[in-house]
């Protein structure tokens, strides 16, 4: 285990490309971030943003053919990218574990859940069957499965969606990983169950001081449960900040647009939602300059020529890439100019794209 000060995960210049009939597709484009012990990082993005591919690249779970992934990924001082397949397998479980979106798909339907929880421990820690079973029962208890002694011999289809996800979390935690990645762990679950599962993840994380990467498309989910948030779009990190800072001071237009387009329960009925017109860009032939420019209210001609440099906000942990950030002088000026030029209508919404 690393000391508190050193980051558990360091990602440097990570790029992942897929080979497609039309050409190479850059799903993750040169991103860098780090994660300290005990920290919960939220990764927010829509489909196509590259958030899931990032997680899988970090874990090196991508298929070998048609995929190229390079960059630096260092977990607990170990360079993951240079590991042999055997060493990689040894790493999965004890070092780094992942919880996926679809609990039924993540579990082997013909294997008892107790055996599935025990599997990791028996492989990585060499435990014998009886001990592993006892530990599994305790693990199931700790993730909130009632009467674990009885349920340890159940099959996945006998459990509800929420229960299954708890089992998946138990499996992930079974080898005491140094890093837990949860990729949309609650998207397939009801909202009441979602709250329970997120509570569980939070408990497990704080209890063990284990760093957690929580990937989701739901800004609401990251708001209450993460220390830092990273917003991804088209394979790039658009904005990153401490969670409280991000929600207080959104600088990147995409983050702002995302926030504005979500219906909030507090708002009265029939509030008109601000939309982000258009679609995510084609990553096989990506546009020049800022990838969000064509859908951005603040975009000016410079945005399409070159990619904005990284800027730091008032809070040093707040980074974003934008020429005309929200709430700044340049940003306001850009907005005004766009309205005058007719790119935006009087309400400040984009014209012409549906």
């Amino acid at each position: 285990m690393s000391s508190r000060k050193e980051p558990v995960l360091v990602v440097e210049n990570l790029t992942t490309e897929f080979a497609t009939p039309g050409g190479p597709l850059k799903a993750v484009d040169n991103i860098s971030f780090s994660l300290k012990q005990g920290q919960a990082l939220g990764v927010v993005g829509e489909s196509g943003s590259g958030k899931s591919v990032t997680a899988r690249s970090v874990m090196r779970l991508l298929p070998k053919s048609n995929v190229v992934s390079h960059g630096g990924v260092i977990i607990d001082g170990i360079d993951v990218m240079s590991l042999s397949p055997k060493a990689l397998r040894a790493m999965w479980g004890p070092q780094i574990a992942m919880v996926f979106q679809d609990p039924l798909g993540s579990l082997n339907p013909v294997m008892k859940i107790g055996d599935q929880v025990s599997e990791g421990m028996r492989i990585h820690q060499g435990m014998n069957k009886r001990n592993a079973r006892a530990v599994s029962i305790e693990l199931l208890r700790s993730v909130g499965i009632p009467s674990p002694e009885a349920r340890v011999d159940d099959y996945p289809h006998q459990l509800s969606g929420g229960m299954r996800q708890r089992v998946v979390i138990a499996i992930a935690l079974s080898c005491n990983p140094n890093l837990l990645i949860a990729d949309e762990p609650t998207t397939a679950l009801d909202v009441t169950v979602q709250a329970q599962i997120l509570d569980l993840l939070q408990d497990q994380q704080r209890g063990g001081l284990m760093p957690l990467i929580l990937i989701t498309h739901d800004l609401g989910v990251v708001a209450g449960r993460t220390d830092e948030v990273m917003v991804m779009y088209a394979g790039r990190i658009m904005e990153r900040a401490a969670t409280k800072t991000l929600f207080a001071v959104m600088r990147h237009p995409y983050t702002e647009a995302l926030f504005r387009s979500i219906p909030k329960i507090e708002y009265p009925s029939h509030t008109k939602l601000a939309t982000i017109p258009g679609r995510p860009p084609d990553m096989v032939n990506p546009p020049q300059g800022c990838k969000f420019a064509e859908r951005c209210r603040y975009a000016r001609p410079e945005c399409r020529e070159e990619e904005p440099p990284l800027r730091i906000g008032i809070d040093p942990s707040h980074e974003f890439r934008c020429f005309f950030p929200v709430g700044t002088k340049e940003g306001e000026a850009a907005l005004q100019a766009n309205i005058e030029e007719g790119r935006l209508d009087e309400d400040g919404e984009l014209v012409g794209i549906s």
Partner: protein
Amino acid sequence: MAGSGTAHLRDSDKTLLRVENMVVEFPIGQTGDVVHAVSDVSLDLIEGETLGLVGESGCGKSTTGKAIMQVPSPTSGSVVLDNTELTTLDPETLRRTRPVLQMIFQDPISALNPRRPVRDIIAEPLWIWWEEQEGRPAISVALDRLGVFCRKAATILTKPLKYVIPFGALAMVLWVISEAAEERRFEDQLGWLDVPARIVGFPVLAILGAVAAPLALLGATWALLALFVPFGVMSRVLGKMSRSLGVFAAVLTALAWAFLVWRTWNSIAGWPAWPVRAAAIIFTVMAIALLIQSLTKNVAATSVAAALATLAAVEVFYISGLDGVPKLIMLGGSVIVNTAIFTVLRGQLAARREALRARSEPKVRQMLETVGINPENSLDRKPFEFSGGQAQRLSIARALIMDPKVIICDEPVSALDVSVQAQILNLLEEMKVRYGLTLVFIAHDLAVVKNVSDRVAVMYLGKVCEVSDPNSLYEAPAHPYTQMLIAAIPHPDPHLDARGAESTGELPSPIHPPSGCRFRTRCTLAQERCTNEEPIIREVAEKRYVACHFPLIGEVAP
């Protein structure tokens, strides 16, 4: 929780849709278990409003939507659309009401046929409607009638089968007796009874045999199958019947059947081959000719095709009997014939399709533009080439092309990205205003439902909990479940403590729902009354209805 109760239904002459006491149940497995998907739900819809139906998985909201559409009809209850009771309509009349009530689905790409171009997908409702109004090709009508006949026959054939088999067995025995009587097996033993027996007995037996023979054959067939097919399957098809009875009947009728087969083969084995062949050829030619004619309505094509089809049929039946060059000519000829028929047919069908397309194109283009899709580069594309949001727009266009009054939106934005959700929600609002629609909006996301609805009904495990306007629903929920739902919603505000949501427990099984109030197993306010008595929906505040004995607003139920 509610269930029984229609207190929240309003009396208005502008009510477009009224659902009363709807029950939808599905049998599951072979043990007679039933999933109570929707249990006594009532809703109403006034012209121009959006009713939001919200709940988590298993609450029955999607099932309600589909039952309203009659796909399939609910197990019981009434659905009245514009003064027409839908549940009792025969299929033909129901089909004619379809344009008025349309539906939009959850998975946008799945809701479009992957093998059709967009122009056909959007135009299809028009084509169906025109076909209904202007008549369909004869072959289509004929096949339909055949299908209906087959299904009716199947129902008749299988329903009383548990009686048919024993009767069939009996009938076979009688048949055997009549055969024996015909051969006068017992002539010698009967003595003076011989003549009366023959006069009376034989005709009776013969008639009985003739009537019973089809029954017998039927019963025999099924009984014979029973020998091969697992008993569970057979009893499911035939209805409950005891194993021993089944086996007994099976053996008996199998024997009788063997007898029958032997006799039959003996009788026709002597027939000459050529009448059979001729009949087969004539039949084939007629069938093909009819087919072509009804597909093409073109006499010239028909006669050419029919004449050449003769050769094609001959090929199959005679090829083994010919040698040498005639055989080659036959083969070659039939290849040419088949290709010719195929080309002709294809051409005719293509021409028909082009005519339909041309007729519907203006409306299709207009519809596409209305929903925000550029017709120029989308008409010939297939669904997979579109993103989720665009595909949903296509679905909306398809639903709107028939000019409906009511649209049921079944989770239309759940499968879409957040930023696209807003686009589609705005589009729906726009369409609603522009075309004067009335919507039923089904979703699990309370924030989304609140945003679009004028009235919200919360459902849990097949029952309606609470009906109210969206704003007061959020500000002061009346039902404990609503409160639990609201508390569980993650707020995009980092300063709020995300924990403390009082969601406890798991959803009970819809096969064995809890007695009394179905929510009581997870409700912190549950008392003994909730176990014994099902709450009826009632008004607890101005325009607020709840089904709870101890609601958060209003008084304890009397």
